[in-house]
C-alpha cells in the first residue's frame, strides 16, 4: 500500500521537476536530450568543520564549474555535468578535483549523485557513493541514514520511534500524513533528494582581492629601486585582473620599515583599470611625493574590490582623423589623461560640471567627480529661455563678496550702475541658512558686467556674487 502511494507520488511531480530543470542545463549540440537534462553533483564533506578550508575548497571548485555552493560549516556541492566534456571525462575531472583538495591540505569525503542533497547526504554518512543517473538514485539513497539529512533532532527522534531510520523508509510514508506530522520542510527535502522538485542553491561568490608581498634581501631607500621591485608584483596584478576581466579602483602599496612601522602609498582611480604599466606610472607619481621615514624592508601590494570592467575598444583612427577617436569619453586616452591629472594634482582637481534643480544660485551648479556614474553621461545642453533680467552670470563666486556702500549704493572700485533687477530669490526659508536676496545686474566703473545682491533682511548688506566674464 505504502509502496503504491510512493509510486503514484513519484510519477506525477516528476514531469514538473524535469520542466524546472530545463532552463538550468544547457544542452550541448548533438547529445541525446535525456543526458543533457541531467545534472551531476559532486559533494565534499570535511571531517571537521573548518570555514577557512571550506572557503578555499570553494574557490578551488570554481575552477571546475561556476555552480558551486557552500553548505556551512563542513559541506560543499558543485555541479560537474557541464564540465565533464572539458576535462575529457568524469574520471579525469574527479581525479583533478581530488588532487586539488589534497594540495589544499585535506582529503575530504567525495561523492557523486544526480541531486546535490543526495550527494551531500551520502558524503556526510561516509559511504562511497557514485550514482550517475537518476534511475538508480532512489534505490541508492534508500540505504542512507536519515540523520545525514540533518533534520531537527525532534523530527528525527519521532521518526525513530516509528522505526524510520533510513531515507528509504521515509520515502515510503504517505506524503500527506508526513507533511502533517513533520512539517513541509522535511517533505520538500525528500522531494529534492530524489529530484522530484528542483533544488536551487545560491552560488558561491568569492570576494577576490589581489595580495602579493616581496621581501628585500637588502633594505632599499631609493625610489627608483623600490619601483623596480614593484614592477613584477604589478605585472602579476595585471595578469590576475586580465584573467578575470576585472579592474580595480584602489590599490595600496605598503612599504614596511624597521620596528614594525610602515608607509602606505594608495592609488585611487576614477574608473576600473587593469593595465600594469599604468599602475607603475601612477605609483611613480605617488612615490615621488612621499618622504620615506626610513629604508624599506619589504613591499606588499593589496588591491581593492574587483570591479567588472568593460573591455576598452580602441578606435581605428587617431583622434580628429576622419572623425576618429570617438566621443571624448569613449577613447581610452581621454581617461588616461584624466587619471594622470588626478594623480599629479590631487583627486579633487579634475571635475565635470552639472546643472542641478535649485532656486538657490549656489546650488544650481555642481561639480561632478570623474568617479560619479553620471560623469560623461550628464544631461546635454538645456537651452533655458533667456529672460534679460533673469540671465545668470558665467562666473560665480563660491562665497559672495561683501561690498562697501556709500549712501546706500554698492561700491566696487567705484559706484556700481544697476541695469536690471531686482530679481527676488528666496529659497530654503524653512532652514536656518535660507536665502532671501534681491539680485541686480550691474556694471562697474570699468564696464564689467557683475551680478550683485542685497539682503532682504536687515542689515541689508550688498554682496558681489557673479561676473559675466
Amino acid at each position, binding site marked *: 500500500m505504502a509502496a503504491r502511494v510512493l509510486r503514484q507520488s513519484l510519477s506525477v511531480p516528476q514531469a514538473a521537476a524535469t520542466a524546472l530543470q530545463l532552463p538550468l542545463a544547457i544542452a550541448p549540440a548533438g547529445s541525446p536530450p535525456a543526458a543533457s537534462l541531467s545534472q551531476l553533483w559532486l559533494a565534499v564533506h570535511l571531517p571537521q568543520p573548518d570555514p577557512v578550508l571550506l572557503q578555499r575548497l570553494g574557490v578551488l571548485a570554481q575552477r571546475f564549474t561556476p555552480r558551486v555552493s557552500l553548505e556551512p560549516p563542513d559541506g560543499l556541492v558543485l555541479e560537474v555535468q557541464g564540465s565533464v566534456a572539458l576535462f575529457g571525462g568524469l574520471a579525469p575531472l574527479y581525479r583533478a578535483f581530488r588532487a586539488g583538495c589534497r594540495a589544499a591540505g585535506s582529503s575530504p569525503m567525495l561523492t557523486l549523485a544526480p541531486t546535490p542533497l543526495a550527494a551531500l547526504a551520502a558524503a556526510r554518512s561516509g559511504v562511497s557513493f557514485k550514482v550517475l543517473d537518476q534511475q538508480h538514485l532512489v534505490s541508492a539513497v534508500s540505504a542512507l541514514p536519515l540523520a545525514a539529512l540533518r533534520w531537527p533532532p525532534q523530527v528525527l527522534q519521532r521518526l525513530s520511534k516509528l522505526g524510520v531510520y533510513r531515507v528509504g523508509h521515509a520515502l515510503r510514508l504517505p506524503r500527506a500524513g508526513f507533511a502533517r506530522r513533520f512539517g513541509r520542510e522535511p517533505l520538500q527535502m525528500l522531494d529534492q533528494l530524489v529530484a522530484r522538485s528542483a533544488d536551487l542553491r545560491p552560488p558561491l561568490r568569492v570576494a577576490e582581492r589581489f595580495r602579493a608581498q616581496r621581501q628585500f634581501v637588502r633594505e632599499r631607500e631609493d625610489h627608483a629601486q623600490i619601483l623596480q621591485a614593484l614592477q613584477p608584483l604589478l605585472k602579476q596584478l595585471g595578469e590576475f585582473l586580465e584573467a578575470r576581466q576585472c579592474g580595480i579602483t584602489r590599490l595600496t602599496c605598503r612599504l614596511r620599515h624597521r620596528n614594525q612601522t610602515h608607509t602606505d602609498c594608495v592609488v585611487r582611480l576614477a574608473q576600473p583599470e587593469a593595465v600594469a604599466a599604468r599602475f607603475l606610472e601612477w605609483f611613480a607619481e605617488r612615490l615621488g611625493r612621499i618622504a620615506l621615514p626610513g629604508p624599506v624592508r619589504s613591499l606588499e601590494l593589496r588591491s581593492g574590490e574587483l570591479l567588472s570592467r568593460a573591455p576598452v575598444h580602441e578606435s581605428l583612427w587617431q583622434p580628429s582623423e576622419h572623425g576618429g577617436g570617438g566621443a*571624448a569619453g569613449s577613447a581610452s586616452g581621454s581617461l588616461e589623461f584624466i587619471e594622470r591629472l588626478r594623480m*599629479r594634482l590631487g583627486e579633487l582637481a*579634475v571635475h565635470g560640471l552639472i546643472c542641478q534643480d535649485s532656486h538657490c544660485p549656489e546650488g544650481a*551648479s555642481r561639480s561632478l567627480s570623474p568617479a560619479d556614474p553620471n560623469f560623461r553621461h550628464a544631461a*546635454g545642453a*538645456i537651452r533655458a529661455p533667456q529672460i534679460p533680467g533673469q540671465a545668470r552670470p*558665467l562666473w*560665480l563666486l563660491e562665497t559672495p563678496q561683501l561690498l562697501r556702500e556709500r549712501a546706500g549704493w554698492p561700491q566696487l572700485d567705484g559706484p556700481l550702475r544697476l541695469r536690471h533687477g531686482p530679481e527676488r530669490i528666496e529659497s530654503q526659508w524653512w532652514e536656518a541658512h535660507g536665502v532671501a536676496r534681491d539680485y541686480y545686474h550691474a556694471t562697474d566703473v570699468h564696464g564689467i558686467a557683475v551680478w550683485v545682491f542685497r539682503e532682504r533682511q536687515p542689515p541689508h548688506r550688498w554682496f558681489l556674487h557673479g561676473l559675466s*566674464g
Partner: protein
Amino acid sequence: MNALARLLEHPGIWRGRSLTRIDTLSSGFPELDARLAGGGWPKTGLVEILATHLGSGELRLLLPLLAALTQRPQARWCTWIAPPLMPYAPALAARGVNLSRILVVRAPQDMQWAPEWATEQALICGACDIVLTWITQPLKPRIVRRLQLATQRGRTLAFVLRPWSARIAQQPSHALLRLGIEPQRNGDRSGVRLSILKSRGGAQGEWWLDLDAAQAAAGV
C-alpha cells in the same frame, strides 16, 4: 611658369602667405571673423587673449565657439584649466554649451607649475578639442612656444587667458594670434574694445565690438 608652380609646391619651401590657408572655426561674431586670418579662429594652435580685467568679456567672446564645438556628436573634451572662479553651469547651459563635454581642472595653490603642466598634458593627449587656460603668473616665451608645438601634436585649439599689462603686451609671442580685450562703453551701449596684437598671416587692428548685441543677433 608650370615648372615654377611645381617647384613652389615643394614641402620644403615656406612662403609667408601659405599660412593664411589655415583651417578655421567661426567665432560666431561676423565682425571678428572678417578680421581674423582665414575668417575665424584657427582649428589648431595657440591663441593668447590678454584681458585688462577678469570679466572683461573674454569668456563671452569664446562662448559661441564653445557651444558649437561641444554640441558636435564627436566632440572631445573642452578643458578649462585653473579658471579664476567657478564656471556657472546654468549660464553655460543656457548659452548652448554641452556640459557633459566640459572638464574643469583646478590647480592647487602650492603648485605654481600646475596650470602650465596640465595645459601641456591636455594639449598633447589628443582627447581635447579646446583647452582654456588662465595663467596669471609671467609666462616664459619658451613655454608659449612649447605649448604652441603641443597644440600641433594633439590637434587642439588652446586659448591662454592672461592679464593685459604693458610688459606682457611687449613680449614677443609664439602664439598664432594674440588678442587684447578691454571693456569699453560706446555711448550708452557697453561692449569691448578688441585689439589684434599679433596675427600670423593676418593684419593688426583694433575696433569696438558689442558682444551682447552680436550674440542676440546670432540667437544665442
